[in-house]
């Protein structure tokens, strides 16, 4: 079980590259935060091993890669994984569509935190784009879930 831990790391790196993919202007606001989705998946799957501190460091890397305000994504990802850990054992028993609703809520809370930080730092509330990305992210959850479950089974990381 110990030797396959590179699989979550690899999926995280793939998510980071997807996060940085170029997108033209109309599409840009609709792209979900893949890093959050991958973090949520691994927290639901392995709640005992996903630490809040790990999520914080991942968020800091996202901050640096996105040339954003250092600390903003770190904070939002830490809160995200904390909440996902609290919910993990319950959510695992849910059917996929109920999981999707939980994911929608988690992504919504993350977007709220990021908007709040933006508001405090720059004083302007960004438009609706972030909320469309939240909805698209929740809709993408079944696909992400299916792909990452395959990856987890290949790596034999289990409950």
């Amino acid at each position: 079980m110990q030797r396959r831990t590179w699989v979550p790391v690899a999926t995280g790196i793939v998510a980071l590259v997807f996060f940085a993919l170029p997108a033209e202007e109309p599409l840009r606001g609709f792209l979900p935060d893949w890093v959050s989705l991958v973090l949520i998946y691994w927290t639901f799957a392995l709640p005992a091993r996903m630490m809040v501190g790990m999520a914080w460091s991942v968020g800091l890397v996202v901050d640096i890669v996105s040339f954003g305000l250092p600390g903003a994504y770190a904070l939002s990802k830490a809160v995200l994984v904390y909440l996902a850990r609290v919910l993990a054992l319950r959510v695992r028993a849910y059917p996929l569509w109920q999981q999707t609703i939980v994911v929608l809520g988690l992504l919504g809370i993350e977007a709220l935190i990021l908007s709040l930080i933006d508001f405090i730092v720059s004083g302007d509330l960004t438009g609706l784009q972030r909320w469309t990305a939240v909805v698209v992210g929740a809709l993408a959850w079944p696909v992400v879930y299916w792909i990452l479950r395959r990856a987890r089974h290949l790596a034999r990381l289990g409950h």
Partner: protein
Amino acid sequence: MNRTRNSAIRGLSLYVLLSAGLITAHYYSPVVRQIFQFAAVIGVPVHFLASLPSTVLERMQGKLEPTDQLRRNYAALREHNLILQARLHRFEFLESENIRLRRLLSAVPATAEKVTLAALVAVNPDPRGQAVLINKGSADGVFQGQPVVDAGGIVGQVTRPGMFRSTVSLVTRENQGIPVQVARSSLRAVIYGGGRNRPLRVLYLDRNSDIRTGDLLVTSGLAGRYPAGYPVALVTAVERNLSESFMSVAAEPTSHLGSEREVLLLWLSALDQPVASDLLDSEGELVD
């Protein structure tokens, strides 16, 4: 269970405080900002991987283009270049004349500009903001607030210079102002970005100011950040409302806002030293 949750909450609050501290430190301390400029190096491989599909696609397009079309393009570009060169000669003449006239008036000397080409890295650095990423950084002498232009006019300014990459805030960024001048009437104003997919706005113009649809707005060079005379926007709509003391003016940026592959970075330096000494000489001659 309760005890573990309590300790988890304590752990979370530690990280919340850490983030808040980091944000404040980044806001107030230039040293912390410097550290994060260096740290941006870890983003280089990620951005390289992310831009790989689009660069490969572009290379393939170049390979697949038929030869006669390439030849046609080449001929058109050559012709264009010739015309531009002819114009440039006249421009150089005008510039030297301008400098001479300014000396005669003993006016403030014009600014000289150094220019460097920077390529856009085909990634969106921040999905939240109105910004693009370029492949030049503080290692190439890029600094915060540096003006960025392209063939159409002002693109924006450098807001976060990294070591090898920098982010450029576009003129459309919300609440970013540029001092401008109407090219036709030389009326001065300030133009503000309106945010994503929204027109630029010229605020606080008196109701009977001389501005029309189709007017070109160029930089006035007043705040000292942008050089004077670069086109910024075309006025698309002018609305005079009798119940308000200011009119609302909408404009459209003239630059391509980072949809082209390359932009120009400008370095401004006042022609102070040599011109000042020249000025003294000529004045001396005049006095004699």
